[in-house]
């Protein structure tokens, strides 16, 4: 077998092709973010130099030398040179140091401080919302036209038309302020409390999770419910469901193996796409509740023009979205036998 045909064969393999394509997407996206970030007005290193000069009376040269020593990037170099240095660092796993939100701190440390909170809050919320939406959707489909269906479908339609941040604000105003719970709607845990593996801290964390959790769930629940309802109704009309009834199968088996499994399939794609955002969080919701997540980190790094942090956050979001799409395809192949992975 010639070298060319071996390469061709490997490329034709579905998995290999998908992974190669995933790398391509990550590369292109991080390149684009690199350049777009540098198109933004104002230069963070210049700001840092000015701050140093103002605060410590340094000369421009001294301040500039300090900046060069502290940060691994030099914005005065030509763009293409900066880009090549960025790529080389990236391949070595070096994300650089923060420029403005915490000058000199390795970006990796900052990410590691924020990422777990987003992972925690968003994954719990997405899963809860998905499960609730799917169950309500199935019940509504089975009782379509009934009271439960009418009430829940109307509720879902209204709630999914309201943007998430607005729901967050409403929660703050009508629950936080009214019932004096506003303290639990700021941050990921109370200011005075020491993080640790004890009941006090854990319950405090969950109390602080409640409001962003409710916001995430309320803003996505309606979509899940309505798609599941539509999908279930169309599955109920499928011939194989009528066959299952004609075969005299028990209702429980029809509901799970014939209706449920088929109706949920189309929702998995959207779920996988949502899971991609576990790493990115929601900028608006995290900001409303001052939640220590990646979304909030992104927001403050944009405001402070912290190039290195922005690059890292965008990179994480890209990777997680691409990887979850890849996983979605693979999992879809497992749960839907019609989609064959391998060829």
């Amino acid at each position, binding site marked *: 077998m010639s070298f060319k045909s071996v390469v061709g064969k490997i490329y034709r393999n579905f998995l290999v092709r998908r992974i190669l394509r995933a790398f391509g997407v990550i590369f292109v996206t991080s390149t684009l973010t690199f350049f777009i970030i540098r198109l933004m007005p104002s230069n963070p290193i210049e700001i840092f130099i000015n701050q140093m000069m103002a605060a410590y009376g340094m000369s421009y040269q001294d301040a500039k030398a300090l900046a060069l020593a502290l940060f691994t990037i030099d914005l005065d170099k030509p763009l293409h040179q900066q880009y090549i240095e960025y790529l080389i660092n990236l391949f070595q796993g070096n994300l650089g140091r923060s420029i403005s939100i915490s000058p000199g701190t390795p970006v990796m440390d900052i990410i590691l401080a924020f990422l777990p909170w987003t992972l925690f809050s968003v994954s719990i919320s997405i899963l809860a919302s998905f499960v609730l939406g799917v169950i309500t959707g199935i019940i509504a489909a089975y009782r379509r036209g009934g009271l439960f269906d009418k009430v829940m479908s109307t509720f879902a339609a209204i709630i999914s038309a309201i943007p998430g941040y607005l729901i967050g604000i409403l929660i703050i105003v009508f629950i936080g302020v009214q019932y004096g719970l506003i303290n639990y709607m700021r941050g990921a845990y109370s200011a005075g409390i020491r993080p640790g593996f004890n009941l006090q801290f854990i319950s405090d964390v969950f109390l602080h999770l409640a409001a962003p959790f409710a916001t995430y769930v309320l803003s996505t629940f309606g979509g899940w419910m309505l798609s599941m309802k539509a999908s279930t109704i169309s599955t109920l009309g499928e*011939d194989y469901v009528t066959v299952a009834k004609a*075969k005299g*199968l028990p209702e429980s088996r029809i509901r799970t193996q014939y209706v449920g*499994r088929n109706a949920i399939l189309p929702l998995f794609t959207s779920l996988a796409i949502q899971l991609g955002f576990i790493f990115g969080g929601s900028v608006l919701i995290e900001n409303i509740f001052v939640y220590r997540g990646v979304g909030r980190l992104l927001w403050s790094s944009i405001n402070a023009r912290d190039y290195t942090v922005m690059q890292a956050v965008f990179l994480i979001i890209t990777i997680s979205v691409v990887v979850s799409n890849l996983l979605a395809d693979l999992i879809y192949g497992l749960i*839907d*036998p019609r989609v064959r992975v391998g060829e």
Partner: protein
Amino acid sequence: MAVKTAVKEKEKERRAIITVRNLSVEYRTHRGIVKAVRNVSFDVYEGEILFLVGESGSGKSTLGFALMNLVPSPGYIKEGEIIYHLDGQDIELRKLPLEEQRLFRWKQVAMVFQSALNALNPVLRIWDQLYDTIQAHDPNITREEAYKKIKYLLSMVRLDADRVLKSYPHELSGGMRQRVMIAMALLLDPKILILDEPTTALDILTQKNIIELLKKIKDELGLTMIFITHDLSLAAELADRVAVMYAGKILELSDVYTIFYNPKHPYTYALIKTIPKLTSIDEELYPIPGSPPDMINLPPGCKFHPRCPYAKEICTEKEPEFEQAGPNHYVACHRWRELKFER
């Protein structure tokens, strides 16, 4: 003469296994009420093959579903009786508790569906879909016993059990899927088998194979079959008796010989003329002029009168009764006594 007495003898033996009286089935749609089956009465005899023939939309499938009390929503049985005479008992399926209905279906009366391609659950292997059928009616059966039964039936429909059982429906051809459905229908040795256009979704060669298979089953198992089709020529091959349906009503019902050689209803005659004869290639075909009526706004009087070349004034005013026109011959036409059709 001898033939005639033989027919007479057979007549006396005939025992109704299903009695249908004044059955009406409707669908409630946003356009209005579809009267899919209108006040239909007939018997199904034990061991016979009764054909239900009619154009698309005449209510054949609806009648089939009604027999299993499985009219899909938004349909419902408006009135009438369907009584099964089984093991010396008269059973009205509709009046049984749900759990008894479930156990009655498939055990006593099974069905092969119109759309072969969609009648199997896409996410379950064939084995699971056959095994769950047996298990639903006999929870204590061992896998080995079930496997033996399944294997026997699959070989009867000429399928390689070990290959087919592991497959998902999409991995099988249309003809194979229809064979699986036939095997599935025979799994519990039902007394009655309803076949709703078992060949329409298939290519012509596969159709032939399936018809051959059904002939074999007819000879070997001798069960009662209700065969639904729009293809009258199939009746010539398989039927004992034929019921011709039009706009939700049976217009003519008799043994297959009478239907073909001595039809009394203009619609039956028109249907026969649409059959191409293989013996003469250049013979003219006579498609029935006009189209079937709108099932929501049916014409007054005889529903066939807008298309009937023999229509008279009375035909536009009064719907004809379903009358006896001979031994075991029933017809619904005002003019059946006068009309003579030359062949």
